């Protein structure tokens, strides 16, 4: 049953105009990489890739934005237009719906952002030794996008205005708060993502300002993903369809 919902959601997500816009967004880092390749003079590729491109642009902007738009659409769209009844009125436990939705959101987000990382990374780092940095960020993005997807799917079950709230989380909480209040960094998915990248690569963490050590980062990502998914399942189980949305 999960594969059916998964496939249905994929089909819905890919059809929408917003997904196209997200793909365009993901092309930008590739363009930047090309510009780097052809014009850069005295910046080390590794530094640029890690700091400017991967951490600075992709993890900071492309990943959360993509996860936000895809995650809130995965189930949120159906809740909003009423087609969610076709999923709820079936002989299948609701947790399956949540899992399928999170998985679909994850797949689409990861596909877009990982391609972005790989493409731009290869362009910047050709000829350098060690694509370790690319690998590190692929792993990090895979992990971070899972947590983000769970978060935004969960938000869309709880709130009608999930997109705005998610936007506030990304651009207010993660951006401003995490920068100015160090103690709170352990509540930022972005920080976890960077921490995971740190775990995989042996480039010094200072290059891309990972503020969390790899161990705690990975742990927090896992715990948070599980907790959020459990919460989402609970909320969907209690979810009531009202006649006029």
């Amino acid at each position: 049953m999960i594969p059916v919902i998964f496939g249905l959601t994929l089909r819905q997500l890919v059809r929408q105009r917003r997904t196209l816009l997200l793909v365009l967004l993901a092309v930008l880092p590739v363009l930047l990489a090309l510009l780097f390749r052809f014009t850069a003079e005295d910046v080390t590729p590794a530094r640029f890739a890690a700091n400017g491109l991967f951490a600075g642009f992709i993890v900071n902007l492309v990943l959360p934005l993509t996860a936000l738009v895809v995650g809130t659409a995965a189930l949120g769209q159906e809740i909003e237009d009423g087609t969610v009844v076709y999923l709820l009125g079936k002989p299948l436990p609701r947790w399956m719906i949540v899992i399928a939705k999170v998985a679909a959101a994850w797949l689409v987000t990861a596909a877009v952002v990982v391609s972005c990382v790989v493409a731009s990374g290869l362009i910047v780092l050709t000829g350098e030794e060690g694509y370790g940095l690319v690998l590190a960020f692929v792993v990090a993005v895979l992990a971070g996008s899972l947590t983000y997807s769970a978060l935004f799917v969960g938000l869309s079950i709880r709130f009608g205005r999930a997109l705005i709230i998610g936007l506030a989380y990304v651009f207010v909480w993660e951006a401003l708060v995490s920068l100015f209040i160090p103690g709170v960094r352990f509540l930022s998915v972005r920080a976890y993502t960077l921490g995971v990248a740190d775990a995989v690569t042996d480039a010094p963490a200072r290059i891309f300002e990972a503020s969390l050590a790899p161990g705690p980062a990975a742990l927090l990502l896992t715990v948070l993903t599980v907790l959020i998914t459990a919460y989402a399942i609970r909320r969907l189980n209690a979810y009531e369809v009202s006649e006029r949305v």
Partner: protein
Amino acid sequence: MTGHPAIEVSGVSRWYGNVVAVNDVTFAVQPGVTGLLGPNGAGKSTLLHMMAGFLRPSSGDVRILGESTWGRPELYRRVGIVLEREAVYGGLTGYEFVRVNARLHGLDNPHEATMRAIELVDLGAAKDRRTGTYSKGMKQRIKIAAALVHDPAVLLLDEPFNGADPRQRLHLMDLLRQMAREGRAVMFSSHILEEMERLGDGVLVIVAGRLAASGDFRAIRRLMTDRPHEFLVESTDNRVLAQALLGDLAVSGASLEGDRLTVRTDDFTRFTEQLPRIAQAARVTVTGLSPLDESLESVFEYLVAR
């Protein structure tokens, strides 16, 4: 059947904060077509959503085929639901839409079931077009197909005739009657009285969240003996007849407007017995007698005004 009524609602209420949408409703529904009638905002939709397991009763119990409806997904194997909102998966073709529903029901042969359901609603010609291109009536029919694909024993429809043109209405009525004939329990809601009159075997009247009446609507009418019946009488001499009628206990009022004689009576049985005798004694021939308020509309108005 296992001996349980198809749908059983016991002491069910639903409130939202201070607003009570459904107020202590109790009824049981057997196979056949049953109509849920009430004005807009009476709570029909809320009641249907609770029967469909989409809304949790604030108090009381809703059961379908003996099982509680809230939080029991297994029940959906035997229940088909068609809600009012127009939304369907616009990107899928009609066929794909019904088939995905079939697959989500876990049917062994989704293709066959899908084709059957599509034939039932007469959408074979349009099945390979995207539902986003369907007209409103076609969307309604494809929703019904999706609700029937798993051959449910109970069918719930929320305002299915809303916005349907006369031909679609007829077709849908035939379909629902056929479903009922095959042993299913079909419950539909409406605020349009003609639909009830023509289709409902039984009717449940919901007014302001309460169950105001249930049963055959003509029988309900009979039950309300405390309300005056009104008749239009045509005769060879209305004025003389009116005078004579007013002498009888059964008649509570008679009015003459130009050529129209309307007679009000509190006692239906006595009046129908006495009218011929009184007319004969007054040497007036009654040429026409018609009830003025036998329709569902007057039943309805009466209940609403109560």
